């Protein structure tokens, strides 16, 4: 045997990974700088398959990066900027120590700075890539734009975030891209469809933040740095795709709200481009049904975009103005508020053409006859239902119907809350073909939610009763005949027998499964069963709740 003995850990997976500390040393960066670099470049650790091998026999917990990633970081021009910055800080300290304030000033002016453009381009080579990854940046920018100047981050950052978010919202309004809104206990979720990408972001409620102490704001600031750059470029591109001027002529000194009330200047003052109609290319592979479905969807979308067209809203002072103004304007409605509350109002309360007055208090002193006084949830529910819902459930002082998440898509077998079913029925009722159903449902609507449920129950009961009656009749028939023929019983049996047989067959077949497959099968079935159990639990809870409500009502009526 010739040759040297091969050493351990010099081949294979051990050479593909590098620990964090080694990577740091290789890049000659401090840990915060390394962290910043990783955040900016989007480098994340990797979990090796065989940790012990990579860790050279040790089982200590270590973070591993791919060696390729670290090599890739070596050529990053920003790394040099980091080092420059370190030098700058050192010089500044020295100048301060010597009390050479002119030097300090000079150094300050020459503070090294870096740009992230190339990193954005590198991380998101195409525009769609960038759009796909914009969720987090929007959430972060919206969060930072609500920060007060408390020293948690630079004021410039806050202002930039505010500017970018306003620009984004303006874009969404202009392109009417908003699809879904959801008021959660965390904040308000919005979902927009931009260039075929669904983009969801969360905006916190307008309260001052209780800044936690266990949060590292430096990390957040680094992310925000990246995200603002990304969002800026995306905004630029999006504005240009709509032939709009960027940056828009929105006076940023004003609040968000006023910015939202004015429409944007277009570069080319052309008339509204007609929406390019979907040309019909009947592909051989595609069914006509599919095509029709797509067309229908398209129509629905168009209808949704013009949901609030021609409606005039007035916001009372206690409702969240930013959110409502944004949503209403996204769907073509006009909106205004009290002049004394905030600038940017376009018409007064006394305007006779106002159709909806949004109020979030039990009652209003002076009411105008020719407008609806509704609670804010109506707007959001309308958006999610894609139709203008009847306003009766949303009047002042009325207990609101539950607000459902538009993001949940129930598959068969899942639990569907009755409110969702109702809305779905309403949506179907829009079709002219089912005019009768529509009317019926509307009637039901007027009667109220509970009663409708009662109806449902009654229907079920009716069914049961019918079945009972049938069986009773049968029984009577049987009684009338003296002989009880067992043959009839057998008539019912075959189906059941067959079922039983099938079930047994299945059971036997399951017995013959291989061990591996059996394991998988059991797991899948366990998951399915759990789902069913949860759905049943929810249904039972709902039923108990409804029963309790009913009994309460009855008691009241008796009294």
């Amino acid at each position, binding site marked *: 045997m010739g040759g040297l003995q091969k050493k351990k850990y010099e081949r294979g997976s051990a050479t593909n990974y590098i620990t964090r500390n080694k990577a740091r040393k290789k890049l000659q960066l401090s840990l915060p700088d390394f962290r910043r670099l990783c955040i900016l470049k989007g480098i994340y*650790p990797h979990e090796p398959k065989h940790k012990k091998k990579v860790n050279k026999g040790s089982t200590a917990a270590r973070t591993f990066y791919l060696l*390729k990633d670290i090599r890739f970081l070596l050529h990053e021009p920003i790394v040099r900027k980091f080092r420059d910055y370190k030098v700058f800080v050192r010089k500044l300290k020295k100048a301060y120590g010597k009390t050479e304030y002119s030097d300090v000033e000079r150094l300050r002016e020459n503070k090294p*700075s870096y*740009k992230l453009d190339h990193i*954005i*381009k590198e991380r998101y*080579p195409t525009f769609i890539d960038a759009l796909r990854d914009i969720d987090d940046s929007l959430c972060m920018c919206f969060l930072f734009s609500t920060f007060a100047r408390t020293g948690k981050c630079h004021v410039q950052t806050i202002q930039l975030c505010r500017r970018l978010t306003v620009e984004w919202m303006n874009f969404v309004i202009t392109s009417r891209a908003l699809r879904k809104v959801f008021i959660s206990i*965390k904040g308000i979720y919005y979902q927009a469809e931009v260039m075929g990408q669904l983009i969801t972001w969360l905006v916190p409620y307008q309260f001052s933040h209780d800044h*936690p102490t266990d949060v590292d704001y430096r990390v957040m600031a680094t*992310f925000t740095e990246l995200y603002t750059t990304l969002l800026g470029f995306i905004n630029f591109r999006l504005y240009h795709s709509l032939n709009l001027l960027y940056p828009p002529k929105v006076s940023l000194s004003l609040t968000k709200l006023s910015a939202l009330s004015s429409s944007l200047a277009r570069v080319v003052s052309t008339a509204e481009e007609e929406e390019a109609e979907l040309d019909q290319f009947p592909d051989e592979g595609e069914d006509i049904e599919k095509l029709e479905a797509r067309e229908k969807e398209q129509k629905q979308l168009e209808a949704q975009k013009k949901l609030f067209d021609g409606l005039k809203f007035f916001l009372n002072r206690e409702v969240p103005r930013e959110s409502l103004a944004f949503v209403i304007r996204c769907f073509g409605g006009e909106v205004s508020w009290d002049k004394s509350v905030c600038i940017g109002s376009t018409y007064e309360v006394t305007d006779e053409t106002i159709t909806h007055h949004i109020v979030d208090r039990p009652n209003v002193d002076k009411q105008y006859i020719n407008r609806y006084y509704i609670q804010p949830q109506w707007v959001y529910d309308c958006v999610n239902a894609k139709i203008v819902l009847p306003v009766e459930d949303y009047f002042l002082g009325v207990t609101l119907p539950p607000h459902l998440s538009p993001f949940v898509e129930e598959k068969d077998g899942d639990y569907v809350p009755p409110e969702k079913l109702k809305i779905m029925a309403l949506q179907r009722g829009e079709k002219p073909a089912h005019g009768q159903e529509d009317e019926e449902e509307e009637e039901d609507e007027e009667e109220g939610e509970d009663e409708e449920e009662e109806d449902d129950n009654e229907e079920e009961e009716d069914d049961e009763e019918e079945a009972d009656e049938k069986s009773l009749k049968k029984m009577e028939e049987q009684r009338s005949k003296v002989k009880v023929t067992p043959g009839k019983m057998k008539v019912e049996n075959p189906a059941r027998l067959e079922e039983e047989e099938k079930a047994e067959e299945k059971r036997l077949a399951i017995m013959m499964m291989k061990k591996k497959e059996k394991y998988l099968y059991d797991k899948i079935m366990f998951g399915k069963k759990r789902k069913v159990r949860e759905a049943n639990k929810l249904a039972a809870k709902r039923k108990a709740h409804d029963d309790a409500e009913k009994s309460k009502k009855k008691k009241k009526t008796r009294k």
Partner: protein
Amino acid sequence: MEESSSRNMRREEAKKVRQKTVKKRSTEEEEEEQDEIFNFNKKPAEEEEEEEDEDLSDSEDSVFSGLEDSGSDSEDEEEEGSNDKEDGDDEGLKTGPEESEQIEEEKGGVTHKKQEDEYERDSSDEEDIRNTVGNIPMEWYRDFPHIGYDLDGKKIYKPIRNKDELDEFLDKMENPDYWRTVHDKQTGSDIVLSDEQVELVNRLQRGQFGDVNFNEYQPQVEFFSGDLMVHPVSNRPADKRSFIPSLIEKEKVSKLVHAIKMGWIKPRRQDDDSRGRYYDLWTNEDSSILAKHRMHLPAPKIPLPGHHESYNPPPEYLFTDEERALWEQQDLSDRKFPFVPQRFSSLRQVPAFPRFIHERFERCLDLYLCPRQRKMRVNVNPEDLIPKLPKPKDLQPFPTTQSLVYRGHSGLVRSISVSPSGQWLASGSDDGSVRFWEVRSSRCMKTVQVGGAVRSVAWNPNPSVCLLAVALDSVVLILSPSLADRQVVSSSERLLSGQQEEEPAEGVGPVTWSEGEGEELNQGIRLKIQHPKAVHQVAWHAKGDYLASVMPDHSSHLQVFIHQVSRRRSQNPFRKNKGLVQCVSFHPVRPYFFVATQRSVRIYNLVKQEMTKKLQANSKWISSMAVHPGGDHVVCGSYDCRLSWFDLDLSTKPYKMLRHHKKAVRGVAYHRLYPLFASASDDGSVIVCHGTVYNDLLQNPLIVPVKVLRGHVITHDLGVLDVTFHPTQPWIFSSGSDATIRLFT
């Protein structure tokens, strides 16, 4: 009220004092003569008293000096003090005594202080020159009759103060000028102030200038104005250095130039706002960069919120009390939601989410700290996983329903066996009896009490004889139940009688043969084969002449005996102990012998006297074994719930392991005609399987479970103990621990 009044009083007095001083200064010369007169008339004794009084007043003055709101001279206050003293008693008893007490208390300390401070009062602008002693404390002259010296150097004598308090009071009451009378301490005389002097005092008190004609608000003349003057302030000619370039500056500049040249300092950078300036970054999109990052995984998006998160969720999504308690108990990572669903009746009541920043921060951490991995999620339809098997319907006939139950035993039925004709069923039970049943009528035709728990029964497979082997304790009995036609009975008798001739020759050995006698003979027990140890199982050879018995024992090689009934001969085929023998079986056609030990099945060739195969059962403890009537397949049941199916042509490993049973498998059986085999288990079920072997070697044998038969009741954790097929019909018998035997057809 009293306090304030006294205060006012004091103020008034202070005023008076000041007036006095002023007056004193202005009218000093007028009063000079009077003073002299007083001085001469004074008596020394009285003087002393006066001096003491003055001392007291002095000290009092120093005590109250801090309290007085006027910043008057101390000299004047001395006067005031004396006045005070003089007035004090007249005015009333209210204030007097208290003050004097205070004075008494503080006297010692204050006098010390005074001695230290005595020069401080010396002021140079003293104008009183009638008394030349200067501005000294007058108490230095306390012990002298004179008070100082005049300009001529003559003594000024103290005035004769014969004014007592009554005089003072009268004076106060009667004299209209009393308020403007001032006592001059240096001369010791009283001075009445003039109107001008009083006016002056008043002015000074008001903070005005003493001179009436003085204008405080004269127009200001600006010295340094913004106006340029024609003439310079100084007429000095400029220095030479102001014409010559500075060397130091030159040095500094050259240093800076050098530093700039060397790049040490950079020129001031123009502020570029390019950071906030955006442009179309994606003008020329190319996917070439993308290729570099093929390893890159985009971060997963945050899951979208469900109904739970709504501010106004449907009531079923809210937590009940139990759920909430559970949620609070759970660890953070175990919780299904990181928040409690809440309901608010209107939007304005929704508070800020306290963990908002936390959640965003956690997302940030996830983005840059979490390793990402692409997980392949198997999206399988569970129905696809179920193997496609032929329908059991197509594999009929097989037993499906329980049709008969044979009751009669009182103990658990360990073993059953069917006669080769299929008419009779023999069963051995722990109650010490062997029963013979007619299969079709479930009647017990015969009961043989053998006096011991029966471990195993086996019907002779030869249809021409009617014999039953029964194993109990250490004896194997051969029974002739005489339940067949005469011909068969006689042939079996012949078989048994033929043995007798040989018997004596086989006297020695571990096994003894003996004939049934008396009562036993009546019951049908024809032969007794006494073994050295307890016999667990008996098995016949297909021809019906040979009988194998098993005595499991770890330590000896005497575990299996093969008996030849016709010659009453026994032999132990094995010389070595190869493990605990569980059961044995003869090959139905060929001269092979199967021995199942704990883990494996050995197959011996009886002709060649050697082992041909060893089957690994892959189970812990084999409980039972059955050989296919064709002899190609073996089924082994084991106590660890498994059933292994061997194909002897293929491999020594089981072709199929079946884990159908939940508990230990107790018995297995093959059908003689149909491709069926069955296994009985402690879980109370008998599973019938269809096992087809195709002649075509390429097609795999097909094993399909076709029926799960239940009926036996589990007693003492034991279910079905033995199972056997009917020799001709697709029927199956099973015996259980519930003392019954059941027939499934």
